[in-house]
């Protein structure tokens, strides 16, 4: 017994070292559980407010590019306004048009604009921290977009901050479809180039061409339908009757300052209804 204690004492540094290494490995392996622990993620109040402060300084320095983005968005909105005016005019004459384009549909979604206080693009599992949280009505699982397209999904919220898993995270899976087709595939990131992602699970009987756009699908009620994700740059046919498609992302993740968080108002209702249907 005494020699055992002597043995342990002699190698106590080694044991302490091994203990700490195993602890770190456990944290890496259980990444998802630890992400939920607030004080270990950047939604914790100290880290959040520190990043908030530095982003205020850097935001001031990048005002001109933000301005540029706003001008572009403005132009886009003007264009949409024109289009809607045109549709409205048409509806005055064609009373059945309203029924065909369900007019109330847009009210299913609420948009909340948030500022990105910190973002990573250099790792395999990147994420963004934004300055709105539970107190502002944001919840886990909500979709996040900006003026260019789909950004990601909220994975953790504290009172004033939220953490978003962007497409650029090897754990992110986002339902998508090719514009004009109804089939749904999955967009995921392989962890190398921040400009490109892969689209999988699209069956080969669908004709796909280079330059086609990839858009969000409304299947999971996270994103509205037809939000831009990217354009197709390369198509590979796999042996299992599916495509492997390279998608150039429309969002520039290295320069992202403001995002919109989307709340789908009737999500619970929809899920309950579907669950009821499943259990029948």
């Amino acid at each position, binding site marked *: 017994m005494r020699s055992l204690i002597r043995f342990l004492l002699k190698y106590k540094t080694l044991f302490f070292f091994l203990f700490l290494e195993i602890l*770190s*490995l456990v944290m890496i392996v259980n*990444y998802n559980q*630890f992400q939920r622990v607030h004080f270990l993620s*950047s939604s914790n109040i100290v*880290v959040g407010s520190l990043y908030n402060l530095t982003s205020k300084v850097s935001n001031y320095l990048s005002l001109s590019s933000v301005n540029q983005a706003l001008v572009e968005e403005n132009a886009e909105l003007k264009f949409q306004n024109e289009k809607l005016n045109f549709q409205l005019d048409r509806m005055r004459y064609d009373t059945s048009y309203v029924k065909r384009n369900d007019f109330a549909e847009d009210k299913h979604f609420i948009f909340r604009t948030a500022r990105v206080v910190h973002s*990573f693009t*250099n790792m395999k599992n990147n994420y963004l921290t934004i300055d709105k949280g539970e107190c502002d009505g944001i919840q886990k699982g909500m979709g996040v977009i900006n003026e260019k397209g789909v950004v990601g999904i909220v994975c953790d919220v504290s009172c004033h901050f939220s953490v978003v898993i962007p497409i650029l995270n090897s754990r992110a899976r986002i339902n998508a479809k090719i514009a004009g087709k109804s089939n749904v595939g999955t967009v995921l990131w392989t962890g190398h180039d921040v400009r490109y992602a892969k689209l999988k699970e699209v069956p080969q009987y669908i004709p796909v061409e280079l330059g086609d756009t990839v858009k969000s699908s409304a299947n999971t009620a996270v994103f509205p339908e037809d939000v831009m994700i990217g354009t197709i740059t390369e198509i590979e046919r796999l042996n299992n009757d599916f495509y492997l498609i390279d998608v150039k992302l429309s969002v520039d993740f*290295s320069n992202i300052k403001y995002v919109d968080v989307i709340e789908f108002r009737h999500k619970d209702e929809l899920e309950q209804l579907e669950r009821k249907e499943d259990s029948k």
Partner: protein
Amino acid sequence: MNGALKYGLLFIGLLLLQVLILNNILFLGFINPYLYIYFILILPSSVNKDITLLLGFCLGLMVDIFCGSIGCHAFATTLLAYLKPHFQKVFGPREDYETVTPSFRTFGMKEFLQYTIILVFIHQLAYFFAEAFTFTGFFQTLLKAICCAIFTILFIYIIEKLKYKR
């Protein structure tokens, strides 16, 4: 006490420098210097080995919390802190081993650089493989580790140079 305070401030200073400024450099899209390990490299040898380990783990974990890479930096920095006293014995001066603080002056420039290069490379390899957690894309991960290690060593070299410029 004075020494402890000095190293406490250095710990916080390097941590903030790392997470608020250096992590945003992203030279060529992915290359960052990981200067915070300089803290472990220049710890005096009079510091107990267990305390060195604990400091390494805490420093790594702090950087992890800011980076969202829970465990990766902690893993690599703990390894660094464990190996540091051994390499210090190899490269450090033979006499008064018990009280030496690693630097250009005490080690000699060549020895200090060798000491730094080996430890930084080990740290960067450990970090990037812990982050990838796979050996697929082996060469991509290796390339990342090598680039970041070179960048880190360069930063440490400049700081050591500046320290003795006065």
